């Protein structure tokens, strides 16, 4: 098979940071190519270079055998190379439809053809299971929906080369499955697909070839999937053997933690009662809209229940506004890091100081840069941010590392109730295991931990219990060995536990 697109010897350095040091990637039509590597390995940078968003320092790009260099992603798209970028490049104030056709709107004369745009978008959106009015303002969509819109934008181009940078990190299992199905169809239509993901099982179920980057170099170049075992891949990524994820020994719930009694939120929750003890990690699972993340919002004071009571570990009723909740020891880690998590133009240390020292004023009335940076260094080590310098602006970090900074800033607040909504979105295998260990340590130290995750394996890996939501109420409680991906998935779809 001929290479549809071949990138060789791509190099890119940002100031002193080398993002890529001679990376290669060869794509073939009709093949799904997995691009793997740790956080910060250079995957996104390579993709940005291939699609013309970033200029390389060196290397060459051949498309259908001819030397190419795209001047922008629009230029790339016009040549059949579409990209779903990791950090959603979208326009929250515009409607969904406008977001689907940047720089390539169909026109008649000087005017847009909205009808044609709609006609082009409908089938793609439907295929992806996006059921939103295309005239809705994009900013009002959930992260998952926005992610799907971003994918739709790439599919509409009918690309010859489709590059997806962690397209599933925000998606629930059903949507992911739908996407993978679409990619399989595209493969049959002889599209060259690049797929980046930190969910190895998902990748391996789909891909035909694998390229692994480490520290900006290609360490495994386009090897057929069949030739590789998981261990080889992980070894190539990490340069060592994978850490073994352990659920840890479940400790008895030694104290009262958070509690919801008969809580209802109109259109979202109906009469939910649940509890999470101190020292316990409770998973919340459900389809999008089933109400499981609403539980987090209710505890955090972001949403007022119309009925019922919510109690925090100190036994008092949970505050009804977010800031009071934070002061009472609640932490809320969101996977929507760029919108609500980070100050992208600020260095890491300012981000990690934002909750404890800045919002809560725990550092006293005078903040000195030195101690803040020192504290940040410690946190950065704890969550394994790379590069481990605290002066890097958050926006310049790789996606996974940005996510770790969000976690770090909440850890700094030393919460007694830790609420997590996809906290490891885009975090690599190794770091994920360490974060899981960290969560366990936080629980052991006496915090109540509630975890929502679109990664069902993650629920299995860390949770002591998993509560499955269906249409606004808890339909099942899974414990011990019954917490596995298959059972959770079945339960959240049907509302009943398989017997």
């Amino acid at each position, binding site marked *: 098979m001929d290479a549809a697109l071949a990138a060789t010897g791509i190099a890119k350095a940002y100031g002193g940071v080398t993002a890529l040091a001679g990376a290669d990637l060869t794509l073939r039509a009709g093949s799904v190519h997995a691009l793997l590597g740790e956080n910060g390995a250079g995957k996104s940078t390579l993709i940005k270079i291939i699609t013309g*968003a970033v200029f390389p320092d060196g290397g060459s790009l051949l498309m259908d055998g001819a030397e190419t260099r795209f001047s922008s*992603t629009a230029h790339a798209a016009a040549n059949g190379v579409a990209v779903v970028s990791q950090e959603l490049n979208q326009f929250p*104030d515009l409607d969904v439809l406008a977001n689907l056709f940047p720089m390539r709107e169909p026109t008649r004369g000087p005017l*847009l053809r909205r009808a044609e745009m709609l006609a082009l978008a409908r089938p793609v959106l439907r295929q992806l299971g996006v*059921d939103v009015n295309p005239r809705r303002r994009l*900013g009002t969509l959930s992260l998952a929906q926005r992610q799907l819109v971003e994918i739709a934008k790439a599919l509409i181009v009918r690309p010859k080369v489709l590059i997806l940078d962690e397209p599933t990190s925000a998606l629930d299992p059903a949507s992911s499955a739908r996407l993978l199905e679409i990619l399989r169809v595209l493969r049959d239509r002889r599209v060259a697909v690049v797929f980046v993901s930190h969910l190895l099982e998902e990748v391996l179920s789909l891909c035909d070839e694998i390229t692994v980057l480490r520290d900006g170099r290609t360490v495994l170049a386009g090897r057929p999937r069949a030739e590789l075992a998981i261990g080889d891949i992980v070894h190539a990524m990490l340069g060592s053997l994978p850490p073994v994820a352990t659920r840890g020994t479940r400790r008895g719930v030694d104290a009262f933690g958070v509690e919801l009694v008969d809580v209802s939120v109109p259109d979202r929750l109906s009469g939910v009662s649940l509890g999470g003890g101190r020292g316990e990690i409770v998973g919340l699972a459900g389809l999008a809209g089933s109400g499981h993340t609403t539980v987090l919002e209710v505890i955090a004071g972001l949403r007022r229940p119309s009925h019922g009571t919510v109690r925090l570990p100190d036994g008092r009723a949970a505050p009804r506004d977010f800031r009071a909740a934070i002061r009472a020891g609640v932490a809320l880690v969101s996977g929507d890091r760029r919108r609500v998590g980070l100050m992208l133009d600020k260095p890491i240390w300012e981000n990690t100081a934002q909750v404890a020292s800045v919002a809560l004023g725990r550092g006293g009335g005078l903040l000195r840069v030195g101690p803040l940076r020192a504290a940040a260094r410690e946190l950065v080590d704890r969550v394994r941010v790379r590069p481990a310098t605290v002066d890097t602006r958050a926006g310049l970090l790789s996606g996974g590392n940005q996510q770790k900074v969000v976690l770090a800033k909440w850890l700094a607040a030393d919460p007694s109730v830790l609420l997590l909504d996809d906290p490891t979105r885009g975090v690599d295998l190794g770091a994920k295991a360490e974060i899981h260990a960290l969560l366990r340590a936080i629980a052991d130290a006496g915090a109540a931990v509630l975890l929502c995750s679109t990664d069902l394996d993650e629920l299995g890996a860390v949770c002591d219990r998993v509560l499955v939501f269906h249409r606004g109420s808890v339909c099942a409680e899974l414990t011990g060995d019954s917490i596995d991906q298959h059972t959770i998935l079945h339960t959240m779809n049907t509302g009943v536990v398989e017997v």
Partner: protein
Amino acid sequence: MTTQLHEQASSTDDQRRRNAVLGLATRAVRAESSSVLAATVLLVLVIGALRPAFFSVGQLRDVLNSSVYVALLAAGMSFLLSMREIDLSVGSIFGLSLISTALLMRGGVSPWLAGALGVLLGGVLGLVNAVVVHYIAIPAFVATLATMQLYRGLAVALGNGQQVTGLPLDDSFFTVLGGTELGLPVSVWVLIAVTLLLTGLLRFTPFGYRVRSIGSNPDAAAFSGISIAGTRTKVLVLMGAVGGLAGVLGLAFFTSGDPNIGTGFELQAIAAAVIGGTPLRGGTATVFGAVFGAILLGVVSSGLVFFSIPANWSSFATGLVVLLAVAVDSVLRSRRRARESAFGL
């Protein structure tokens, strides 16, 4: 589940089709900031109830007529604001175009040609702004603050600090552009045309999408291959041309050129656009809203005159009424905003 989803989708489709007829109209009105229109109407009604003399056709026509210049500038400004830019030189562009057109006429150029050149000059002044912003690499705020003085200075210097009079007032330029057609001043018709045109440009052309895209997320815009500098240049030129047009209309109405004309229009135009619903943070804009915002301000200043406010209290009263009018607008708007509450996971 798939079935369920499809059902849902098709019911949405149905609904959409059903509403198609009314839909466009209501959507247009809602998108185009009905709240400021409602606040304006309310204000007119209140003033009219208290001072019936205000409630005459002639008076309302005069209010419209006097709002035209700021309204035009505000319409252009809404483009700029929606891409997170600002142009402080619009008042001076207005003045300089007006003076230059007057001088051209006095110099013997045929009035209509002079008018066309005036609009062109406005565009050129906008281009100068764009060039300064681009090549000196400074924020448009600073660049246009400087050109505001520069252009105003030119308006003073060109006319040698004097008003320009002695224009051929019998020419069709003055009688037509300064006159009335179908019950409305011609300049109001021009405003209506420009408003529709700019709304179309903003809503129904790729250019309009680019403008709002940049304001919504400049980084994503650059990532998507949208040329920020190019779009900004076009918008600044557009703004300049609209300012030039306003100046030409102003000349046709006032029939003489004063170098100070349009001083302070920049703030009024920005205020009108913001009151109309175009936020300073960019991403969205409404040309209609900006125009209504200007009319609202016009109604305030016109209406107050009917209450015989002593000169020393007029500024206080103006501020107060603007505040009240904006409060009404805000109350009307907040009902809509409540629907799109955005704080949550």
